[in-house]
Structure formats: C-alpha cells, structure tokens
C-alpha cells in the first residue's frame, strides 16, 4: 500500500548505535515494536513490507537468539533472509572485513545485520556498502536492538521509563549491552546506575551520566529494574575477579540481594545466563523475572527497526 505523504518518523539510514538517536526517534521505534507484538501473536504473522528485499545476517561472532530473531523478523516482513556462515567462509582464509563488505555489496542486499567482535567494525563496514546496516553488536561498543527490546520490556511492565531507577549490574566494562542501555535509558529520562567491582567498570564511567556503585546493597536500594549482565567465562578467573564463586557471593543476584531493591522491582538479563555466576536460578526463573519476555520483545523490536529502515530503501 502506498501512502505518498507519509511523514518520515525515523530519519536514519542505518542503525549503528543508540548514540545519536533522539528520544523522539527511540519512542517511535518502541511504538512500532509495540504494534508488532500483536502481529507476532497471530497465527498469520506475515506482512509484505520487505517483500522482494534481501536481508543478510553477517555474524562474525556466534549468536543464537539475536541472529534467529533477526531472521524471524525479516521473514515475518516478507524478506528473503540469508545467514552468512562466516566461520566457514573466506573470512577464515584471510579476507578482511572490507573485502567481505565489498563482496556482499556486489550481491545487492537491501539490509545487512552485522555482529563483530571489534568495536567500530560495523561502522567501518557501513561506510563501504550501499545498503542499510544494522549493528547487532560490535565489541564492547553498542548493541542497539538489545537496548530497544529492554526498553520495550520495561515500558510494557512499568508503564513508563521516565523517572525509573535502573541498576545495571556486573561486567559493564566489556558490555555493549550496558553501553547501549545507558545511552537509551538516560535519553528517555531514567536514572541509571552502574553496579560492579571496579575492575569490571569502564574507566571514566562516572562521566557517562550514571551513578556508580561498588556493592549490590547500595546499588540496588530503591531500584525499579535490576538488569544483570553476563560474565564471560574467560573473565571469571584471576584477571578481573578472583573467581566465579567470589563473584557470585558479592555480585550474583539472589533473593537476598534482590530484597535490597524495591518490593516490585523486576529482573532482566540479556542472556544467555550463567546460572550461579551472575544470577541465581530461582531469581532467573522466578515471578519477578522478565527474561523470557525480553526474548519475545526481541523479535518485535527487530521487526520495528526493519520497518523503520525500510522507508529509506531505494525504490521503496
């Protein structure tokens, strides 16, 4: 259907990060996502927004949930989705990221979804291709769709984001999820806290508009949302913290620590979770956990992002 004078609500051609998005643009994406939650709950889930379009999933790091939710989102909008098996392809034979970008560009995709282990890699790729690029996580830099789905989950459960206190806990230093969430939640007027041991906090974080806490009791006091982060296995021993056991003892979320937060506080985690390391199974699977809803919102948010970028695709 063609509505010629439709106002452009999202002015960006790519989604490379939350940085640079205004509150208005974020809210527009959340509203779009809200609408597509219902779509995904119907038996007939297909739309035609991206019919004839090609979406390439280019994941240089393994991912289950992000990649599959982009795949589902693309298919529900009618796109042809191709998952590039990066591990098996020429990248392992010494081809650079730029070579890959140029090769893919020649195949004339409409949208590329990229995850890469290095910060800035998605920006680099976006400069070399003609199509829309979505950042599905670049190093410790940004993971914008995760922050959007977290915001949507919070808004659906709390009715708002402005004025809430959100405690982001754990390995913030290495977390792209934390950076995107800090940017998004503070743009929408939440009070954001960073809670973790100093070794897992990025230098200068106090100047990124968050309150910093080095222990869970103070960090969780009065919090509406407790957002736990995954601790990578290779960081559990010696380098940043003494052991997984000590980490869980001081920073792992269990019922006792959750009691420091508001009585109606809710628990989130971007997944996949390390049970007994950063979060206790009882909390992760308990009545205050939003973890499963986050996954559902993941598909809705990715549909919304694809729709928003689709209006800028050529011949659209």
């Amino acid at each position, binding site marked *: 259907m063609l509505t010629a004078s439709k106002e452009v609500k999202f002015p960006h051609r790519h989604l490379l990060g939350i*940085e640079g998005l205004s509150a208005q643009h974020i809210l527009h994406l959340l509203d779009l996502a809200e609408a597509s939650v219902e779509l995904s709950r119907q038996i007939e889930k297909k739309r035609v927004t991206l019919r004839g379009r090609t979406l390439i999933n280019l994941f240089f790091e393994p991912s289950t949930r992000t990649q599959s939710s982009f795949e589902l989102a693309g298919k529900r909008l009618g796109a042809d989705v191709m998952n590039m098996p990066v591990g098996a392809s020429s990248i392992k034979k010494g081809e*650079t*990221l*730029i070579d890959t970008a140029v090769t893919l560009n020649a195949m004339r995709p409409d949208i590329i979804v990229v995850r*890469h282990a*290095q*910060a*800035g*890699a998605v*920006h*680099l790729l976006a400069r070399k291709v003609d199509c829309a690029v979505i950042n599905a996580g*670049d*190093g*410790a*830099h*940004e993971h914008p769709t995760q922050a959007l789905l977290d915001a949507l989950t919070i808004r659906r459960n709390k009715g708002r984001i402005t004025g809430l206190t959100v405690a982001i806990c754990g390995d913030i230093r290495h977390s*792209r999820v934390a*950076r995107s969430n800090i940017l998004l939640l503070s743009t929408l007027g939440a009070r954001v806290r960073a809670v973790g041991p100093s070794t897992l906090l*990025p*230098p*200068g*974080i106090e*100047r*990124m508009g968050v309150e910093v806490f080095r222990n869970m009791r103070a960090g969780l006091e009065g919090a509406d949302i407790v957002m736990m982060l995954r601790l990578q296995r290779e960081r559990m021993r010696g380098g940043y913290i003494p052991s997984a056991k000590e980490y869980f003892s001081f920073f792992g979320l269990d019922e006792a620590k959750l009691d420091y937060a508001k009585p109606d506080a809710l628990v989130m985690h971007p997944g996949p979770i390390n049970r007994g390391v950063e979060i206790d199974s009882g909390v992760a699977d308990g009545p205050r956990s939003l973890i499963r809803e986050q996954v559902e919102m993941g598909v809705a948010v990715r549909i919304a992002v694809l729709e928003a970028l689709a209006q800028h695709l050529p011949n659209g």
Partner: protein
Amino acid sequence: MDVKRSSTAAIAHRPVALVNARLIDPEEASVSQGGILVVDGVIRGIGPSIANGSLPSHAQIVDCGGDCIAPGLIDMRAFIGEPGAEHRETIASATLAAAAGGVTTILARPDTSPPVDDPAVVDFLLRRARDTGRVRVLPSAALTAGLKGAEIAEIGLLQQAGAVAFSDGAQSVRNSRVMRRVMEYARDFNALIIHYAEDPDLAGDGVMNEGEFASRLGLAGIPREAEAIMLDRDIRLVRLTGARYHAALVTSILSLEIIAKAKADGLPVTCATSINHLTLNENDIGDYRTFLKLAPPLRHEDERRALVAALASGLIDVIVSDHNPQDVETKRLPFAEAEAGAIGLETMLPAGLRLVHSGEMPLTRLLAAMTVCPAAILGLPQGRLREGAPADLIRFDPDEPYIVDPAHLHSRCKNTPFDEARMEGRVKLTMVQGEIVFEAD
C-alpha cells in the same frame, strides 16, 4: 615540482646566494632580514650584506621574496622501510617526502627486518642512503640484540660503523636488569640511548588513551601511567649508571614531571614528543579513524596543552615526526586490529606552524625543537644558521594556506592524520649541503 639530485661536482663549486629573506636563527632565537651565501656546501656568509649587487658574479642567486630561511629540519624518529618493508617506504620515497617537508636529516628507526643490530646493516643503510637518498639519513642501531630485550647489542661496533644512537624502536626494554646493563655498557662508549617508554604489561591490550572517550567507543585503554612507570624506571637507572638518555616520546603530564625532576637534578636526560601529540588529541579519533591510532596513543586535550607549554619552555627538547608509513592492508581494519602509526615527514613543519599561528610559541622555539636541539643531542654540526655550518637550509612561507591532499604526499603510504586538513605554511625549497634537493613550483 621537485629537482633530481644532480651530480655534486657541478653545483658544489658554484656559490649559491639566497637573498631577500627573513633569516630565522633558532640557535640565537633571532629573526632578521638578509641573505645567505653558500659555498662548497657550507654557509659562508649571513646577513643584510648578502644581497643583489654584492655577490660573486658567478653565484646562483635565489630571490626569496621575503620568505623565511631556516636550517633544515632534523627528525629524530622516522621509520623509512629499508631493509625489509619496502612496500611501505623506501629510502628514496622517505627522503623525497622529507625534502618536500623541509627535513634534511632523518634518524632512521632500527626496528627493520632484519633489525639494525649488525654493523653490516648499518653499512647497508649508509650506502643505500648515499645512492638513493635525497637528504641525510643517519642510522640508529638496536639497543639489544635482535630487539629482543635480552642481550646487549654490539654497541661499540655499531657505533664504529656509523650508528649515531641506540634504540629498540617501538619496543620498551621490559627487563630492568637488562636495561641497567645496557646503560652501563653504552655509557662507556658515550652512546646515546633513545628509549620508547611504555610498560607493556600495564598497556596490555589497550588501543587508545584510557578514559571516558575510550569507554564510550568500547575500546580498551592505555593509562598514562604505562608511560610514566617505564620512564621513571629509566630515569632511576640513568641516575645509577650515568648513561646518556633520550625519551623517544613523552605524551603526558606525568612524564613531564619526571623529566623536569631529572633535568633539575642535572641528569643527562632529554626528551621528544611527536608533532601529532602536540597538535591532535584523542577526540580526533572520532568515529574509529585508524589513521589517528598511534603509539603512544593520542591523549586528552589537557595533556596536549601541557606538552605545548613544555615545548615552549624548553622542558621538551625535540619535536619528531614519528613518521610511520602503514598501508591500507594494515589500516583499513577495525580500530583494535589496525596497526598504529602515521606518516609525518612532509607535514611536520606546517602542523607545527599551527602552534605559532595560534600564539602558543614563537617561530624560533618551534624551529629550535626541529633543528638545533636535536643536532646538539646527536652531536651534529647542522641545524644552525651559522657561518661554517653545513648548508642544510629551507625556504618556506609560513602563511601560505593549503589543504593537505594525501594523493600529493610523497610517502609510499598515505596514512596521514592531517587528511584534508587546512594548513598554513609550506616549504618552497630544500637544500642539503648546498645542493637544492627540492623546489616547489
């Protein structure tokens, strides 16, 4: 655009007079009107008396039209490709870039392949420079055998072969016992040690300056302390051994405090910083621009200002280009994977002139840090506007505006951090030992 180096016999016997110029004497910190007479590659006359009408009839006369004349620049830190990295740079391309930038003496880094840890390699470099170079190339040699930081290099033999300084290039000698022995041994030969000070363990996997900006970009940082800790160790070893020590690159306030103390105590210590650290800061990295990835990393603006002030006061002795050609294969990568380094021979003077135009230091001080100061540290006769000194001279207009176009730079690699930058000040003529080796249209 440029002049091929012609046979020495033809020019050496014909005097050259550079007249109608502003003479910038960095040694005396003075500026005057006049001319310079060059005979047989040596400065034979300076001042207002060198003018049209009072010159030998067979002299070649260059009317400078009021442009500045200064000693040619001496660059104490440049990677020039040979041997082993000729795809990045050659002595021919590096010295052409140097000539175009007003650099008349280059101290070449020893971390080549093979490294300059054998007298035969020093000999090779001197021959290649003689045969293919447009400006003077002085070899520095390795401090430790194979640059491995474990055993003392053949400092005596390397010095005899012609190495003028000793350095492990881009690496720090991690082991303090080795460094102590190297210093003790070098002192016996009165050899100059040039050391890149960075604690590799503390620097870890960092790729830019540690701080808020690195954290926002999601990049691992290198704290200023990595430089200060290594520098502090070195200075303590200088105090113990008495070796002549030059810090290759200081980039932070912490390091300046250490250098100030060492100098106040009368230790034989000097230091340099790079033109990049004087004119750029970490924010210039912007959207992951790998041409701004340097080692040591660009710092916060507060540090840059402190470096400029320390240069103006003379606490920092020398400005280097830290010329480091990197090709697209090593630069067009995600920031953390890209090689560090920037080319700089050709832009060192105009970039430095930014500090003069902004009123941060007088022209004579800027030039002293690129001429007479490095000459004094290296024990060279050039770098001075003085009768009897070698006629290594440059003519430049400090105000001529232009925009840096990488395609027009002479280095084999185009990784300039001043890509499309507006500059004021351009070299019009470069002379080495009385011979014109570069002349702009």
